[in-house]
């Protein structure tokens, strides 16, 4: 199966040849077809560049460093990546003039692990076709329903519209507005937890968070967790710790991490995607997003950089913290 | 430009002129009005009570029909416009009404206020443009002094109707200028004609409409125009005596000016 659309590749080649950019941020293949990693290409290495239905990573975070290098880089950004990109622009982390945003369309990205769970093994390639996915495997062709193999984050896709771009590779496909894929169901997971008893919630999170091995993958992939030095790595902060000395540590770590990105998290879902222990970390971030939406009005980080962020603004009529108590036992 | 068109009951019976001249003029101006199928009476009054759902459904059906055709919904009768516009606003902003109405109707897809409701006059102002109308006029109504009568339903509540400044509207005056006549402004142009109470007690309408007509006459208007069949009825019934202006639907004068009457 083709690993990159000719138009996209040619566009990148043009951008380098006509001097607009000198590098391209895209993906390269690893050992297996689904084992793809973000990588920077120059004119010479463009041939290795890929962009297909396995390329799920949020590319925006790489642009913090890349945009501070000399020259200009073309970045293949999916619609969801542009929210993070915008948020980083708002926080002055990216030098806008050094990035040429090439908006690429996205039909959702395939989680090979989920496919393997369905018994589809030995994957050689895959392509989304409408509501199904066609796999090419060493055992022959296989198909399955798209929603069964999409990444968790794609199941609550914010929509197919790019929030910011210099050029779209497929302007025909660009919708006028961002329509969320699954409407209101994005917070179902959070609501389900909210409706449990405190005891059940406690057991749930204990079960999940106790698996944390503090590999920091969630932090390293998160575009909002882009501090020059993380408080948890800074001995002077008083909370640094590499390994867990007790069970509390990972709670502290994950709560503080979620708090630090509250109001800035675009809900890109990368934390959950990369967690080797499959901890549903996005449920922490989404809890903050849901609370913010309910208490302070709908807010989508990265949607409009001119809006005040919920935690750096206030109204005099804001709910009192007691509202947490008043909502009662759920 | 093509609109889904909702004529309403009165325009099919007592107010045929309002409808006929609107259609002729629209054609002359290159606007297509496609009457929606199976429309039902809008109910004539907007049910203000929050627990009234059934009485809002016919408006929702019309709105949904326009949504399915992918077009804006054009209205002409002031009452229909008022009802449909306000019900649409409910569907857009009131979660409870939206939920209940959709539960009743069981439409193919949820209707949530997507349709844009446009009054014929708004179409003239915003889509065609009064400048273009002025250019299209074949028989300018020179020398005619016309008082616009807005009534209540087009203007209020302004927050929902979004039609014009509710106390100092200009759309009909601009229209009058566009067809070559001179607008006469009367302070009662946005005061009630007496409305439906005429069924019970003609005296209220007599006083209210008499005031409107009297004021228009005192300011030298030869014609009063309106977009509402009930206003026309009340005003006409009280436009007697010497120097009383005639009461017409605005579409009739438009057709006359465009030379399609």
């Amino acid at each position, binding site marked *: 199966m083709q690993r990159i659309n000719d138009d996209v590749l040619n566009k990148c080649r043009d951008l380098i040849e006509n001097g607009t950019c000198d590098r391209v941020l895209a993906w390269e293949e690893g050992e297996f077809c689904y084992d793809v990693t973000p990588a920077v290409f120059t004119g010479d290495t463009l041939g290795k560049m890929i962009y297909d239905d396995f390329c799920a990573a949020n590319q925006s975070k790489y642009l913090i460093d890349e945009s501070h290098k000399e020259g200009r880089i073309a970045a293949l950004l999916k619609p969801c990546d542009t929210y993070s990109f915008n948020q980083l622009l708002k926080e002055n982390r990216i030098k806008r003039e050094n990035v040429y945003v090439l908006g690429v369309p996205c039909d959702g990205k395939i989680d090979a692990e989920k496919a393997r769970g369905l018994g589809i093994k030995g994957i050689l390639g895959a392509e989304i076709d409408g509501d199904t996915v066609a796999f090419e495997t060493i055992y022959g062709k296989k198909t399955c329903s798209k929603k069964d193999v999409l990444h968790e984050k794609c199941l609550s896709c914010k929509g197919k519209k790019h929030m910011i771009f210099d050029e779209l590779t497929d302007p025909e496909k660009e919708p006028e507005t961002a329509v969320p894929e699954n409407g209101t169901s994005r917070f179902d997971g959070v609501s389900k937890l909210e409706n449990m008893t405190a005891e059940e919630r406690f057991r749930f999170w204990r079960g999940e968070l106790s698996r944390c091995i503090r590999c920091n993958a969630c932090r390293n992939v998160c575009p909002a967790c882009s*501090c020059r*030095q993380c408080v948890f790595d800074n001995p*002077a*902060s008083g909370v640094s710790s590499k390994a867990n000395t007790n069970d509390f540590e990972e709670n502290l770590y994950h709560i503080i991490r979620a708090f630090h990105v509250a109001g800035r998290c675009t809900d890109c879902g990368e934390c959950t995607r990369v967690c080797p222990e499959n901890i549903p970390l996005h449920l922490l971030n989404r809890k903050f997003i849901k609370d913010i939406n309910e208490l302070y009005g709908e807010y989508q980080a990265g949607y409009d950089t001119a809006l005040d962020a919920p935690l750096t603004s206030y109204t005099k009529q804001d709910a009192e913290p007691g509202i947490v108590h008043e909502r009662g036992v759920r | 430009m093509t609109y889904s068109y909702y004529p309403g009951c009165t325009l099919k019976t007592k107010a045929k002129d309002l409808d006929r001249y609107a259609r002729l003029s629209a054609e002359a101006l290159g606007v297509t009005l496609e009457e929606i199928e199976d429309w039902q009476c809008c109910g004539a009054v907007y049910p203000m009570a929050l627990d009234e759902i059934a009485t809002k459904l016919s408006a929702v059906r019309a709105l949904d029909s326009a949504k399915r055709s992918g077009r804006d919904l054009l209205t002409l009768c002031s009452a229909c416009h008022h009802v449909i516009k306000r019900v649409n606003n409910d569907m857009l902003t009131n979660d409870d009404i939206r939920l209940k109405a959709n539960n009743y109707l069981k439409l193919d897809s949820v209707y949530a206020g997507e349709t844009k409701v446009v009054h014929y006059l708004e179409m003239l102002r915003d889509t065609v443009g009064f400048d273009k109308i002025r250019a299209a006029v074949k028989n300018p109504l020179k020398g005619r002094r016309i008082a616009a009568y807005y009534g209540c339903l087009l203007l209020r509540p302004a927050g929902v109707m979004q039609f014009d400044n509710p*106390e100092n509207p200009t759309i009909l005056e601009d229209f009058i200028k566009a067809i070559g006549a001179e607008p006469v402004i009367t302070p009662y142009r946005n005061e009630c004609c007496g409305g439906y109470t005429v069924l019970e007690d003609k005296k209220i309408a007599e006083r209210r409409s008499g005031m409107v007509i009297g*004021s228009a006459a005192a300011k030298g208007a030869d014609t009063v125009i309106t977009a509402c069949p009930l206003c026309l009825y009340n005003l006409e019934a009280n436009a007697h005596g010497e120097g009383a202006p005639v009461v017409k639907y605005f579409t009739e004068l438009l057709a006359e000016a465009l030379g399609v009457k």
Partner: protein
Amino acid sequence: MQRIGVFVCWCGSNIAGTVDVEKVASSVAGEPGVVFTTNYQYMCSEGGQGMIRRAIKEHGLTGIVVCSCSPRMHEATFRKTAQAAGLNPYMVEIANIREQCSWIHKDKDEGTEKAVILAKAAIAKLNLNKPLTAGESNVTKRALVIGGGIAGIQTALDIADAGYEVDIVEKSPTIGGRMAQLDKTFPTLDCAACILTPKMVDAAASDKINLYTYSEVEAVSGFVGNFKVKIKKKPRYVNSELCSGCGVCTEKCPSRKAPNEFNMGLNNRGAIYIPFAQAIPNVPVIDPEQCIKLKTGKCGLCEKNCTAKAIDFTQKEEIIEREYGAIVAATGYRPISLENFDEFGYAHNKDVITSLELERLMNAAGPTKGVLLRPSDGEHPHEIVFIQCVGSRDTSGCGKPYCSKICCMYTAKHAMMIRDKYPDTKVHVFYIDVRTPGKNFDEFYRRAVEEYGVDYIKGMVGKVAEKDGKLLVQGSDLISNEQVHIEADLVVLAAAIEPDPSVRNIATMLTASIDTNNFLTEAHPKLRPVESPTAGVFLSGVCQGPKDIPETVAQASAAAAKVIGLLSKDKLTGNPCVAHSDELLCNGCSQCACVCPYGAIDYIDKEVNDHGKREVRRIASVNEAVCQGCGACTVTCPSGAMDLKGFTTRQIMAEVDAICR
């Protein structure tokens, strides 16, 4: 490692009655850093302080913990004590074992146990204290007043009187503001011009006051004591040095189409004009929008007729840069636009006017020479209706939610003056409430009713309709429970007032906050009513909230007193407990600046050396003279780059740890 001394006070029996002070002293002796502990009857007494001073010297202490009353009581005392013994005053921590321990607990064991923990927390914090020095900055001994109305003039006069230089920037061609437009003033009915114009003359004559009329503030930078301001001087096209103020040019000007702003558009003025006879400076200005010469190149009649050769069509806009130690906003107000209130017929009826227009119609220097005539036909009105609260107390979105405060009183004034001058005139006032708090205010209003027979109707007007040259006023009379219909000749609307729209831009430049109604916010609603939250910026007059003239003048003088207090200092000493950003940790994300109420955080591009790697980064930089030390930024900062001196994250965590141990 610190060398800490712990001093436990008995406070007579206040502390010692419930807390075993000796046990407290001995229990903390083994805490990290503690090298000396003692207890004494009254630590704050000269004896106690002497004991502290001696111990500091004898034991080479680097810091002291005093276990005593609330730091709000004696922290300053013990800081001075420490300083006298050569310690940095910020190497002092207080454990509050009186108000928050001995006074509220009865059981001695319990009290002692808690006192020990509080002492340990203070010791833990002190171990992380660093000597702090307050920053100092110079003060430019000059003030800027933005706005030349009565508020700005009064503030400037008071500042000048104290011997400081002060500049007034006024956007219109003359100072005087709204008060100059008024006829009489309540509650004494003295003429506005008679009491205002002498002040205008004083301002112009003062060698300490410099007027920039027809000028606007273009940019503000810097901070308290050290503001840098760019002032844009618009071209008058008249040379002020040469002009004699004879006014011939204004008479010769053939352009007569411009509405006269000073008369609220009730008549027209020329393209070259002096706003009013007592204008200061008494120099005409050419309105480039109206001037035939400037628009077409032809005309120049004014130039030909000017014997002083003062007309100069080549004048250009000028930018002046000046430095100030303090800035006072006195930007004033205007009546709201009435386009949302056309039920009262303002748009179509010339005889429906605003109260400010009535002021001009009643004024001897106004368009009717002070004779009350209807704008439509120049006839005397015989029946007049006043409508109160037009756009005030309106939460529907059409008007303003607040009470405009001045309308009740000026309407009583108008009604009374009309009845006095034209006793055959009937005057009705539709009111919702009559609000007259103020010295001699209610008496004034009652005079209008009782002596002058003004008809006050409790209710509101719903519609004003014109009929045969009369205005039919339909309103409710809630007392008699009827709808009243009055055939009036003139209707006067008490339009709500709103801050002058220029305030938005000025607030942004000054980093002074404005509320949802665009009024400038005060630093504290009760205790700091004339200061803005931004240090060095003060508020004068209606820009802070609706006010009448006496209140405006009082606030203007209060703002001046604050300015004088600031300018009288040679150096400003800051609060050393301010935020500080670690340049190596800072992401430059700007979140801290979003929560800073004082605009104390700027971003600078600075070359940093991050473990050998040199690069230019965008980093937060706290202006210590402006920061007040609230700490909002520290929590917003995800990387922990922002910290608060005196209350550092590690210090507070050390206290938490000590308490929870």
